[in-house]
């Protein structure tokens, strides 16, 4: 039984903590600029001009995992921000705006030189503007043109035919916006973006995601799941924010090798595995124990989440003669693929079949409206494909109304009545 964590998982956790400590030192001691970004912003551009970048979603997950979220969320409520406003993308803002209400992890976020967000959801502009105001920092917006062509099997086009995936006018618009962003970053850092270095970085990103693709295939094909979903997420997310760096590629390979070793040795995350589950939606960051809670009792193991699976299908771009266009093609429709029709349901059913999934738990996120759309299409498509679905209603960073015992009871009942028959 794989009770011990992978060495790679321990290394990933240690890397993140050290990386953040280094960031604070660079910002406070060396007075270097850094940036706060939405997760779907192309981090590569920042790193290549030596501006380190922190992901808003990563920071929110850390705040939640450190059990600090309720204090900041209470402060938002007390200030009159109603409970239907998105709490996931705004928890980082709250940890700055209401810093005195809680204890921000690792000393809290220093003041960034720049904030940058893609305007996917309507609320992001608001949240990032308030956050920028609170810091007294600059905000750069990447607008989000809507898709008119909707190829359902998007993952079949992304690698080699990415120019067909995004309409030319949208691609040109995103390229133009990224070029403006580069101008701004160059002005801040005093360094010019080396286009050859961008191409090389994207090639390394491809290599990193190819490694994750291999891990995904190992997990899908192994008789029993070799590595828990929570460990998959830790290893993937630690590399995602520094993707294409030497460390990220080396770490991805180390992770792959350990998973392969487990497969070769027949090690299972949950020996005697009886049910393979998939988690659809953002991670339940305040209660990650939920994902291992059914191993002992039902031999049910979470095999799949979008975090490992999306990298290979969402990031790999071959044909890098115009690296900015390749980067733009990845950026243009990033979120829609994960949540909305026709893309999300098609992809998730495909992934469920590849991973021999027995049951799917679909997050119904509270206070997170944009990520909640498309959910009914996904649930229906999975059921139509013969995969039982259990919706789980929860706030992903808000534990205040989370009924941990009730949710676990619901899953046990689901396993017994619909999955393990």
């Amino acid at each position, binding site marked *: 039984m794989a009770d011990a964590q992978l060495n790679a998982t321990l290394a990933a956790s240690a890397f993140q903590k050290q990386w953040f400590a280094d960031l604070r030192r660079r910002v406070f001691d060396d007075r270097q600029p850094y940036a706060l970004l939405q997760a779907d912003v192309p981090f590569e551009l920042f790193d290549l001009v030596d501006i380190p970048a922190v992901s808003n979603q990563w920071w929110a997950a850390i705040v939640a995992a450190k059990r600090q979220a309720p204090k900041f969320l209470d402060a938002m409520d007390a200030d009159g921000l109603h409970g239907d*406003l998105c709490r996931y993308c705004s928890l980082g803002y709250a940890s700055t705006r209401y810093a005195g209400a809680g204890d921000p992890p690792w000393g809290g976020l220093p003041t960034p030189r720049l904030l940058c967000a893609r305007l996917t959801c309507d609320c992001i502009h608001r949240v990032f503007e308030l956050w920028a105001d609170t810091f007294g920092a600059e905000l750069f917006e990447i607008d989000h043109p809507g898709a008119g062509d909707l190829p359902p099997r998007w993952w079949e086009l992304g690698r080699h035919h990415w120019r067909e995936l995004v309409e030319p006018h949208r691609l040109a618009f995103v390229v*133009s916006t990224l070029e403006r962003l580069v101008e701004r970053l160059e002005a801040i850092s005093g360094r010019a973006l080396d286009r050859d270095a961008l191409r090389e970085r994207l090639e390394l990103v491809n290599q990193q995601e190819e490694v994750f693709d291999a891990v995904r295939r190992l997990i899908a094909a192994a008789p029993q799941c070799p590595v828990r979903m929570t460990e998959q997420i830790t290893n993937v997310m630690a590399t995602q924010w520094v993707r294409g760096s030497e460390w990220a590629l080396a770490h991805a390979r180390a992770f792959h090798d350990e998973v392969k070793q487990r497969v070769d040795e027949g090690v299972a995350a949950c020996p005697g595995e009886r049910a393979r589950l998939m988690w659809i939606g953002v991670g339940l960051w305040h209660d990650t124990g939920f994902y291992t809670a059914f191993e002992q009792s039902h031999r049910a193991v979470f095999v799949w989440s979008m975090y490992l699976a999306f990298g290979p299908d969402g990031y790999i771009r071959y044909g890098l003669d115009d690296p900015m266009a390749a980067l733009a093609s990845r950026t243009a429709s990033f979120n829609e693929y994960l949540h909305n029709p026709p893309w999300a349901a098609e992809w998730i059913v495909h992934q469920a079949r590849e991973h021999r999934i027995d049951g799917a738990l679909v997050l119904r996120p509270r206070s997170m409206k944009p990520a909640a*759309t498309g959910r009914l299409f996904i649930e229906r498509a999975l059921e139509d494909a013969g995969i039982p679905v259990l919706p789980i209603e929860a706030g992903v960073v808000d534990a205040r109304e989370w009924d941990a015992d009730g949710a676990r009871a619901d899953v046990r009942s689901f396993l017994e009545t619909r999955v393990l028959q």
Partner: protein
Amino acid sequence: MRVQEPCVVASWPSVPVEIVRAAGFRPVIVRGASGPTPAADVHLEPGIFPSRIRQLVENALTGRLADAARIVIPRTSDADYKCYLYLREFARRGVTTALGPVVLFDLLQSRGSDVPAYDVARTRALLDELSSAAGRMPAADDLRTEITRANTARAAVRRLVALRRVVPRVAGTEAFPLLAAFWEMEPDRYAKMASDAATKIAARPPLAGPRVLLTGAPVDGQTLHEAIESHGAVVVDEVGPWGSGAAGNDVRIDDDPVAALADKYRADAIGARTPVDSLRRLTGSLLDEVDAVVVSLPPDDAVFGWDYPGLRDVLQARGIPHVCLRGDPHEEPTAADHAALGAMVSAASRLQEARHG
């Protein structure tokens, strides 16, 4: 609602009606209502989509939009964009076969220097699409004619709006439908109707009672106006496209009418993606002429609630009473909401009396 040709249905008044008319169609813009939406409820997640989107999808799934020449969904909000994706998915999966062609009008509103050119191109694409539906491409002069007619109607809107502000002579409950009709009524008829109404209203005595601004998520009906005015106040303005914001500025008439329309709608369209500083400026400019403010933040709101603490602080600093309502604006407010409205109107009345001795 049963739409028959030649109509173009839109989900929000950020689609240039001048283009719709120049192509030979009548614009029909879906608005929220209090009725049930059982067909839409099967597919739309609860608590996310505003009433107008639920009504549109209900109409789409029950065949009532089958005869629409085009259903145009502007990129005015996330809910509109998702509505577009859902409607396309219904067609792809055969959930309904009785649905007119669905078109995305991808008008962006952010401040980027690349946005205006993008919007002009998308507005041109809309013109091409509607021309294709009509079987004829309008000439530039056809567009200029429609712009001129709509500008005339806008002038009539502004005349009505002037009779609401400072010294109001018309209740919001009466003015709102007069203003909202701008979007769908044939412009010449609208201009005459609104001008006649303005002439009659101008002869009326001023209305007493505190003057109220209705802001927050833009309302597309007058249920809240009725509730507020039942307490003796007068709704004199709304931040949104259906009431006093219907006209905005005129569309310029120049060599490129498509570019003029793209610029106008990008700058003036009020919705969830309107830049927050624009809305803040607009709201701030209206506060000098009101005695109280009602902020509507319905359960589907994911946007305007972020502006509330800042607005509240401004209102408190200026001593302007306000109420924040969280209900569906198409439903009668609760007893608690009415009590809060009553208290707000009383406080505003006292301040009004104190100011006027």
